[in-house]
């Protein structure tokens, strides 16, 4: 009896020695060079595409369902309306009207309230210039697509998606606990911080395999040339104007993703996170606890 207990505890001790190295490794190489480079190229493209996209939207700030524009019945529109004192900005969103003076519809330009769908500070260029906005948009759209394709080839070839982004059944079962932990701003540390948690995995999968392909394909559907070459795109999205609406909604989804992403970076150890996305190295020792 006694002898058996001694043997058992000896086994546990030796296993513990094998599993937990002593002292624990502090620096963990979290992101490969390829992920880091494509991440920052993607970040640059995203911000410039978003701002030049808002410039393009401003040229006709209304979105419709279908092949053509039913000018009287937009699904989303941002307009300037005459008001008792000057002008007010009105945003129509799926049949609901909102007063958005100051930001959407009417915003300040050189100190003057100016009719403008998205405000000057959110567009490239800052002044109204559709031709230049299109130049920026198409240049960085090409860069985004080429960067994205390189990322996909790498991700599949190196098993990045399978290994790092695909949640296991066990991880999916932890979804509820992970949501609660995130809401309480409690983040994994030490060894668990080596792996994306299930919420991260799902958010990244949605951005990489849903929102980004959607925004590229609906962008292509707005091109009359591409519509001639690949008319199937029109049927897939329900017409050119629907594609323009979906493009805008997918962009909104990506903006939401980026906001949450940046908040998470800030609250879960900002310098450690930024360092690991620049140099690759993540400090497990100073991870938040």
């Amino acid at each position, binding site marked *: 009896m006694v002898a058996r207990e001694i043997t058992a505890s000896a086994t546990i001790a030796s296993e513990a020695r094998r599993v937990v190295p002593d002292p624990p490794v502090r620096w963990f190489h979290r992101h490969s060079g390829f992920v880091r480079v494509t991440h920052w190229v993607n970040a640059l493209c995203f*911000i*410039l595409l978003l*701002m030049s996209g808002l410039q*393009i*939207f401003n*040229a*006709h700030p*209304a979105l*419709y369902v279908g*092949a*053509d*524009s*039913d*000018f*009287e019945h937009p699904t989303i529109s941002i307009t300037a309306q005459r008001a008792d004192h000057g002008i007010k900005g009105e945003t129509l969103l799926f049949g609901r009207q909102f007063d958005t003076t100051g930001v959407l519809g009417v915003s300040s330009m050189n100190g003057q309230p100016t009719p403008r769908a998205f405000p000057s*500070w959110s567009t*490239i*260029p*800052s*002044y109204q*210039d*559709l*031709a*230049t906005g*299109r*130049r*920026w948009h*198409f*240049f960085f*759209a*090409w860069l985004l697509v080429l960067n994205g394709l390189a990322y996909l080839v790498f991700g599949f070839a190196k098993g990045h998606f399978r290994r790092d982004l695909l949640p296991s059944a066990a991880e999916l079962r932890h979804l509820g606990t992970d949501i609660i932990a995130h809401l309480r*701003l*409690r*983040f994994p540390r030490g060894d668990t911080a080596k792996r994306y948690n299930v919420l991260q995995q799902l958010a990244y999968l949605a951005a990489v395999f849903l929102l980004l392909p959607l925004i590229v394909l609906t962008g292509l559907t*707005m*091109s*009359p*040339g*591409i*519509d*001639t*070459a*690949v*008319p199937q795109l*029109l049927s897939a999205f329900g017409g*050119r*104007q629907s594609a*323009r609406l979906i493009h805008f909604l997918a962009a909104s989804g990506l903006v939401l993703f980026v906001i949450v992403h940046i908040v998470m970076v*800030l*609250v*879960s*150890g*900002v*310098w*450690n996170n930024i360092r690991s996305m620049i140099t690759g190295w993540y400090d497990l020792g*100073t991870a*938040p*606890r």
Partner: protein
Amino acid sequence: MNGFRADREGKPPHRRGLLAGALSLGGFVLSGCDRVSNEPQARSILDAANVLTYRVQRFLLGAHRLAPEFAEADISSEFRANGSTDPQDDEYLDLADKDFADWRLKVDGLVEHELSLSLADLRALPSRTQITRHDCVEGWSCIGKWTGVPLAEILSRAGVKPQARYVVFHCADTLDDGSLSEDPEKIRYYESIDLDDADHPQTILAYDMNGKKLDIAHGAPLRLRLERQLGYKMAKYVMRVELVRSYAGLHGGKGGYWEDRGYEWYAGI
């Protein structure tokens, strides 16, 4: 403790400093983008993307692939008119007064035989009717039915000389946006397309819209339809078709009224 951990030196970073840094970086990026936008060299780098788009689309499209066509039921109830909608040029007003009875389409430049065609002449030529989607560069679309003469029919009668590379459309309207104070002759609307597009079956000079005579707002008496590109390529109030080797010597030298004002010559996107 969550959030901002002390860094390795033990100094906690300032949240306010970070925010101010992000904001001033944003301002720098914005003013930088405006400056880059006005730098000719930077613009030509951004333009490289459009050369790529043109090459890839031409490869995907081939010469004769047709733009999607629609059914009668799809025709838009309101077809927006953009650009010039009521030209006030004297010559045009005189022609419109007589319901374009004196109007003639001139075909000249690098052709074997110069042509001068009345509306009756054009209506006597083979015609094509197509219900297509019109996409404005601003973002909206309208569907309309167009009837007209395929440009290829006119060009084959004129005989295109081998040196010719582009077809230029000279228009009757002056769409003065106030940015250029040149004489009216120089700021008349014009457009140009290459011979691939000129030969395309859907490239027509339309005289009817939605089963009726083309109205003034939409380009009477004759306008171009170029279904695989954006609306600004589709010159209205066409007076003269000129075959040229290069459009560099015309107006601003970029091949079109809007092209001279910064828009892309190839508008398939």
